[in-house]
């Protein structure tokens, strides 16, 4: 009996520990899976012009090309952002050669995820080579959704085309 009760307690404790380590939303089916994963955000198509900011900081974590969407972490002062660049298939031919500590300027729509982290859905980001990697037009329409051509542009160049945005209300 002693052996069985120990086993019983061990299993119960393991279940409780596993459940406590997960965010509460996961218990109820939110925040897990989906396009935004734990963030609950629409990281690929989402954008809102009301929350557009331009931030300058340093690269804290280089792009993980195996992640989808591709992200890069940037630190500005005391704040840390996850800059969402775009889907992996769209960026697979780009040279995402940032290094940790590189100075970077990024413009995009800022949001706070359900995981408590700050995200910046990039409209453009300064490339280490000096140009800009343009990912969305000014209204937030992503280059991978068609309608305008994004990609690497030199300093002073402007993106072409694109209409509409993903925002609702402002």
């Amino acid at each position, binding site marked *: *009996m002693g052996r069985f*009760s120990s086993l*019983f307690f061990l299993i*119960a404790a393991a*279940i*409780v520990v596993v*459940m*406590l380590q997960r*965010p*509460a*939303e996961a*218990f*109820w089916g939110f925040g897990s899976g989906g396009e*935004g994963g734990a*963030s*609950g*955000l*629409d*990281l690929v198509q*989402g*954008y*809102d*012009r*009301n*929350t*557009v*900011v331009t931030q300058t900081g340093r690269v804290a974590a280089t792009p993980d090309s195996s992640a989808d969407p591709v992200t890069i972490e940037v630190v500005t002062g005391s*704040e840390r952002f996850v800059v969402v660049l775009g889907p992996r298939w769209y960026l697979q031919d780009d040279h995402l050669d940032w290094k940790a500590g590189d100075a970077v300027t990024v413009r995009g*729509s*800022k*949001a*706070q*995820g*359900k995981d*408590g982290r700050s*995200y910046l*859905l990039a409209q453009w980001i300064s490339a280490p080579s000096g140009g800009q990697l343009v990912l969305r037009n*000014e209204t*937030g329409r992503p280059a991978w959704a068609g309608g305008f051509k994004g990609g690497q542009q030199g300093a002073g160049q402007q993106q072409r085309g694109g209409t509409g*945005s*993903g*925002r*609702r*209300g*402002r």
Partner: protein
Amino acid sequence: MHRSQFTYSILLGGLLLTALLLWFAVANYRNAEPVAHSILRGISLSLGQAIEALAVRDPSLKTLVDFSSSDSAYFSILDQRGTIRFHRNPELIGSQIDDQRFQAVVAAPVITEERIRLGTGEVVFETQQQLHLPGETLVLRLALHTWQADQIIRRARTGVVVIVVLLAVAWGFGVWVLRLQQRDLRRREAMARHEQLARLGELGAVLAHEVRTPLAGIKGFAQLLRERAQEPKQQEYAGKIVAESERLEGLVTDLLTYTRQETLQEGSATVQEQVQEACDHLAEEAGRARVALQVTGDIGRPVACPADRLRQLLLNLFANAMQAMPEGGIIRVVLSDNGEQATILISDSGPGFAEESLKRAFDPFYTTRASGSGLGLAVCRKLAEGYGGVIVAANAPEGGAEITLQLPLIKELA
């Protein structure tokens, strides 16, 4: 306190505690949302006052560019026609707002509050309130991040889940312990009964052995007296001694059968034949008791039990059924087999077993009759189990007692 009362008290206490914990967890969860809402409202009012103070100090609103808060997703200031006079995104200044929700605040000095989903997928807490500048009234639209304030809701939700899980684990463990306890109790009871029966058996064996020899003498002399007595009264008394001696002899035989270490004998018997013999044996007695015996069914092969043992079994069962019907009735014997086991179902039209009798029917020395030894069914069970069979007592749905005897059939020759 009685054991079951103690168990019920524990169960009741557990249920009350469970209800209390669930009520606490759910109440906490239900209160969490209003609390989070109040926190957001407080932040909104504070930020609104700060923005208004800055705007009053600089009606051109340029100083607001430097105003920022980690709680704010964005804020904008609209005039009464819906033109954006200030926005955190300067590109939007001067453009027309594309929804009319601000009109409610223009019409009356109210504060609107709602959660909306932005284009990014983030849900923000948006408030609209009037902003009074010298000479005009504008509308401040402020959107706040909700993650920090909603921590309280998430914690309450986690609390509900943890409490439910812990309660489920506690109840599961409790039920498991209770089952173990009940199993242990049954085992102890069975052991105690077994020991009691063993002691009774030993005592019975000694008594039977000590009684049998003098009883034979008493019976012999009484028979002699009955034969030689001249007067009818003396013959009658001697006859009574003989009859009572025979009854005692029967009791001693049953006692010895029950206590004897049965050595399994090889042998088989045809059930129909033994049933018929037992019926014939009891025919006279059954006639006197106005009991009819009715046999139906068939068993394909002999059973693996010697004929004398099977006959003894059947006689005991039939006699038991007859004794249960002092006013007469019917004993039905239904024979069947499933290819491996023979089933002999003996039912009577008597009153059936009382609840206590049903539990103790096969206990030795348990009887409901004044003159019974209480060994008949105990001997039956010993014999049946000794030959690999099973015997079960029950009450028939239509009334009366029902004894089911199952014995293994002999193996079919290939």
